[in-house]
């Protein structure tokens, strides 16, 4: 009886240990956790990986890349779509060309498209991934699902860029658009980058040197700190970092040779210049023609006024926030990363993006925009109405 009691007690005690004992004696999960060492810090990573794999597949005459068939685009004449593609107006094949491509209208590409030369999309269409060895031209109201890369990339009005867009030389957004990540040595918003270079080299007159009284300067730490809201008069110039543990307002044409940390919101009036970085827990709003040498990081929102320049040729910088709004004339050297949504503003009537034809309330694909509803604007008069869309698996 005692033996039975003890045995049952032992069973009850050891029962919760059973999964542990099994995993210990018969391991199923013993490899070190994977460390991502490339992807997140290398925006063109997806595009370059795809191109390498495609080139290998083509060189070995493989019919497929992963699960997708590889198709050759026609050098002349009509595209050879299969019956299902013609019927559904959607191709899931990977298309590749050794020359230039102009993609036909009325066809959604849910497989990648790669061209050794230039690639021009059709308006109002949806693309999963686009690679161009030369110029990539995203026509009006095109939608990108995952990534696009080219030597130069031109984005026209109404595009919705839900994936990464990268370029070896330059990205230009010629009209209103929404975006997630733009990465190139020069990213222009409806402007000529040469104009920005002239602006960034312009010296500003100093009206007042030094920071106002609430700022406590520490020589060893090489920074000033301020624990209350701070308003700096226009034309003030100073050297060194500044940490403001409340809101910071900079008047017009303030100049600082250092970096900023702001616990509240940062508001810089027109023509301010900052050689370092600005890291802000609240919102960053730069007035027109501000010049920032380093990066801008916000935990809520960044608004770049018309003509602002971030970074410089050869000195790349990052503009990163959950929400980014950019006015025409802005030039960013490096990366703009809006983790929720980035959008243009200040384009007048054209600010209003047309609704994409495939985006219905029930059938829209997951484009990664948390605030999608906010970006949806009624279609222009005469625009085609949305059609139901079934996202790719």
């Amino acid at each position, binding site marked *: 009886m005692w033996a039975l009691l003890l045995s049952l007690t032992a069973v009850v005690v050891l029962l919760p240990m059973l999964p542990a004992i099994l995993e*210990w004696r018969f391991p199923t999960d013993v490899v070190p956790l994977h460390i991502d060492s490339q992807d997140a810090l290398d925006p063109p990573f997806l595009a370059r990986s795809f191109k390498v794999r495609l080139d290998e597949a083509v060189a070995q005459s493989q019919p497929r890349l992963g699960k997708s068939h590889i198709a050759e685009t026609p050098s002349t004449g009509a595209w050879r779509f299969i019956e299902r593609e013609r019927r559904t107006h959607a191709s899931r094949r990977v298309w590749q060309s050794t020359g230039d491509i102009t993609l036909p209208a009325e066809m959604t590409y849910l497989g990648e498209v790669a061209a050794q030369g230039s690639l021009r999309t059709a308006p109002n269409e949806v693309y999963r991934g686009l690679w161009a060895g030369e110029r990539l031209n995203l026509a009006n109201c095109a939608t990108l699902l995952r990534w696009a890369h080219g030597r130069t990339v031109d984005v026209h009005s109404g595009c919705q860029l839900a994936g990464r867009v990268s370029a070896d030389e330059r990205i230009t957004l010629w009209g209103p658009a929404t975006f997630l990540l733009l990465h190139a040595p020069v990213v222009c918003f409806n402007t000529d980058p040469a104009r920005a270079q002239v602006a960034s080299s312009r010296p500003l007159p100093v009206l007042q040197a030094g920071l106002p009284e609430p700022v406590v300067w520490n020589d060893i730490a090489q920074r000033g700190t301020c624990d209350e809201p701070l308003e700096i008069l226009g034309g003030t110039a100073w050297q060194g970092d500044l940490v403001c543990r409340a809101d910071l307002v900079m008047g017009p044409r303030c100049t600082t040779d250092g*970096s900023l940390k702001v616990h509240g919101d940062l508001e810089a009036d027109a023509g301010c210049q900052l050689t370092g970085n600005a890291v802000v827990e609240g919102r960053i709003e730069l007035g027109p023609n501000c010049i920032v040498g*380093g*990066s801008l990081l916000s935990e809520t929102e960044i608004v770049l006024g018309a003509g602002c320049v971030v970074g410089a040729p050869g000195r790349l910088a990052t503009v990163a926030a959950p929400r980014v709004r950019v006015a025409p004339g802005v030039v960013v050297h490096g990366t703009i990363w809006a983790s929720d949504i980035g959008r243009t503003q200040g384009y007048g009537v054209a600010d209003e993006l047309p609704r994409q034809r495939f985006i219905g309330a029930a059938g829209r694909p997951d484009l990664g925009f948390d605030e999608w509803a906010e970006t949806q604007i009624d279609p222009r008069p005469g625009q085609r109405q949305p059609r139901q869309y079934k996202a790719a698996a």
Partner: protein
Amino acid sequence: MTFVVTKPLAAPLAVRNALFALAAGWALPCVAIPMTETTWRLEVTSPFGAVWGWSLCVATALLLLLLTVYAVRHYVFSLNRLFGAQRHPYASLVSAQWPRVTIFVAAHNEEAVIADCLANLMAVDYPEDRMIVMPVNDRSSDGTREIIDAVVKKFPGRIQPFHRTSGKPGKAAALKDATELVDTDFIIVFDADYLPSRGLIRRLMAPFTDPEVGAVMGRVVPNNVGANLLTRLLDLERSGGYQVDQQARQNMGLVPQYGGTVGGIRIAALKAVGGWHDDVLAEDTDLTYRLLLGGWQTVYHNRAECYEEVPQNWGVRVRQIKRWAKGHNQAMVRHSLPLLRNRDIPLSVRIDGLLLLGVYFMSPLLILGWLLSLLMYFTVSLDVATPALLAIAFMGHSALGNFAAFFEIAAAVHLDRSRQRVRLIAFNWLGFIVSAVAIARAVLEQALLDRLPGRGFHWDKTVRYRRAPQVSQPTGLPV
């Protein structure tokens, strides 16, 4: 001794008794509580006298209170990671004018591992002209020097070795000397058994765009996880500690801890708080608190991950944790009061800072709690209800405090999406008991033996297990 509360009770007796028993189970498990319609009578009797009985009661209640605070802290952190808003303010920094940085590789008799560490550093994607690697070879008596010199020849101009042949022993003293040779604005410190991944330096440097950041800490991931049960348990502990504990403190604006390796330091901040202190055993904890008191932030970057080698036998693990405990408790003694008095620091940060300083003191207190429970059981006069309350108290000691960290481990494994390994969590009590005993021994040694003439703090170097050069790290396939 009788304590009479004359306040009349309004609730039904059964409900009152149940509520009181529940409350007593948490706070006063040892008190005999005869209850009447009109009074609370708390009786504590003991053959050793009322003072003995009440002392045990009060001590147990205080311990339970403290353990409850730590338990709540663990649960808050876990829930924050699972359901709260996450802060990764520097993770999106892709393009930047990266500053010059010196990378220290602290090495004392590290011939088995240092070549791998240096080779990995030579393969990182940080601009070569902005990165100087400085192996800090601290009085090694094995082949560490020759290995370093061989790597230096292989990568000319990229490595500036610092062979330290004399001076005060210890990592802090070696780093102090090495820092004198640095002409960059930032340093990053690795131990020699670490295997930095390709993007790690950029990730560690990203938070320094923020002029308020004095130190950055990355995440440590065990590389030899499959060696035996101990390494698998340590893998789980590391996950809980970094993926949940550190990141939750980062999310909540509390006190992420600089851990002495896989971390970066701003030289201006280091100088502003008095440089390295070479009389401490845990220079990392010491620096974390000096930076905090000096108005600098320490940032935890969960995506700055680096492989390390964890101990593969219990003896090494015990020595490692004893060293950590002594160093941490030393920092507790030094910094608790200044932290408490510093009104420039928000109250929540001060409280979290104090709780963090006290984590290595909880193990001896936990053991003390078990002892008190047993003493009370045998020496305090009991009525019918009290044995049940004592049982609750005993289980409370076991289930609260550091045991609540198991919830953190489960949450971390869930977040890491490597869910099969969580089955081993039932074995973590083993690691916990070993740690508790080791820490308690460390506290006793520190309080008593280390103060005797001829004794003192002794640095125990962690044994390395790697023998053959190995591949830099497991890498993922291109997407």
